[in-house]
């Protein structure tokens, strides 16, 4: 199945109570397939066809506050349109799970993959997971529900996949039986439900300078805690799937590795294929694929990365006026390492521009011939 179908299948098995929807390329297959499941009577989810993504997320906030498991999907401009409410969802601590098929935000208008949509909202307070394959999308959607709803977390979660590249290309995906997914995610018990009758509550309160700071610190702590609980959730999922989902995946990385590419999402697949070919020629190269982007696994990653001399970070997004997102996280990771690694920033794949094996080879060549520059370099770019 495609990455989009895998997300829809996971959603079908989870059977959330409410799914507000609005279509946008390339996430549409997710909500279309899900709506088909509901229309054919396989699930009893209430689908709300809202008038825009802003309303979709608003409806999701209402449903989640009422104590109903809520999921949705979007991309690009849809995510951008939701922006105001993303902060409401995370600030109100509502465990909404959303699949995002990463697509470039406008302008100029582009329907193809890059990470400007999700990275553009990296500070919105949502847990962010990036998936390389359709299998990962399937597994991550299921684990995201369990992670988000954990009583010490209660934070909304985004499960990202590369638009078109992962969302529309067919792969083999191993799915669990419906009952296994249902028993893994369990019943949703939101502790502060709007509809509970034990005590009156007010949601979406006004909070003045005397309280807001502390509330946000509590939110930051929940996000930090999500990093710990992520390990527990993936371990529990691994028991039934026999697949691991570490916060970052190491490919051909050991104490002899000399050069490594750090990247996210489907680009990691291309990098791994090239690294594998180069290893056959005796080159000591590896790939680190970051899966959990928020909360970023600084400590665990530092332990591995500090001993690798030459690092290239491949970002599929610009951060105008600054350095690209993943690169800045890697610099932060190494900041307290007290080692002298060389890190080269690359931007690739903007607006769906292909990442070719030749591009990865070029990166490894530069790493191994010690060609570093403080400027961000571009791959497959027409200068």
């Amino acid at each position, binding site marked *: 199945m495609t990455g989009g179908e895998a997300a829809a299948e996971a959603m079908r098995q989870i059977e959330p109570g409410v799914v507000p929807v609005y279509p946008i390329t390339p996430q549409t297959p997710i909500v279309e397939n899900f709506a088909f499941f509901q229309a054919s009577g396989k699930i009893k989810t209430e689908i709300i066809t809202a008038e825009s993504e802003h309303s979709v997320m608003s409806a999701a906030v209402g449903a989640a506050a009422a104590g109903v498991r809520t999921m949705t999907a979007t991309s690009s401009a849809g995510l951008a349109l939701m922006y105001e409410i993303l902060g409401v969802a995370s*600030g*109100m*601590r*509502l465990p909404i799970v959303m699949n995002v098929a990463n697509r470039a935000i406008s302008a100029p208008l582009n329907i193809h993959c890059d990470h400007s949509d999700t990275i553009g909202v990296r500070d919105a307070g949502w847990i962010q997971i990036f998936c390389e394959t359709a299998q990962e999308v399937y597994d991550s959607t299921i684990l995201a529900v369990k992670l988000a709803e954990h009583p010490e977390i*209660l934070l909304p979660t985004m499960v990202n996949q590369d638009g078109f590249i992962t969302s529309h290309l067919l792969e083999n995906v191993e799915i669990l039986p419906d009952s296994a997914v249902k028993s893994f995610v369990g019943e949703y018990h939101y*502790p*502060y439900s709007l509809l509970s009758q034990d*005590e*009156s*509550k*007010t*949601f*979406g*309160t006004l*909070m003045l300078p005397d*309280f807001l700071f502390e*509330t946000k610190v*509590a*939110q930051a702590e*929940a996000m930090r805690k999500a990093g710990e609980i992520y390990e527990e959730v993936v371990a529990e999922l691994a028991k039934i799937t026999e697949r691991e989902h570490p916060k970052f995946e190491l490919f051909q990385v050991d104490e002899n590795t000399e050069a490594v590419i750090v990247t996210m999402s489907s680009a990691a697949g291309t990098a791994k294929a090239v690294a594998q070919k180069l290893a056959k020629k005796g080159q000591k190269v590896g790939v680190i694929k970051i899966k959990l982007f928020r909360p970023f696994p600084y400590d665990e990653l530092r332990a591995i990365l500090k001993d690798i001399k030459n690092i290239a970070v491949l970002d599929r997004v610009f951060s105008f006026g600054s350095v690209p997102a993943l690169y800045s996280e890697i610099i932060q990771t190494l900041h307290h390492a007290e080692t002298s690694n060389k890190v080269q920033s690359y931007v690739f794949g903007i607006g769906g521009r292909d990442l070719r094996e030749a591009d990865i080879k070029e990166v490894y060549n530069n790493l191994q011939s010690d060609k570093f520059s403080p400027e961000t370099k571009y791959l497959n770019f027409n200068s």
Partner: protein
Amino acid sequence: MKAKILPGGIITEGGNSVSNKTGLWAARHAEVDQTKCIKCHTCVAYCPEGCIEIEGDGKNVRVNEDFCKGCMVCAVECLVGAITMKAK
């Protein structure tokens, strides 16, 4: 505030904005000259906070200073100029 604050800023109380005495923000409050007042209820209708009341017996116009923010709309709209703004 006696309510608990739950994660997400949810509070275990409803309608508690009455405990936030916004009248404290005022630089001056409205004062009604009861003898000039013709009990037309214009000020009651115009007050954005709904804090002017004409009490039961119809004889006393009361400005609730807990919530009067001193916006002066009542003083401007009063048909007979019975309302003046007095500094606190």
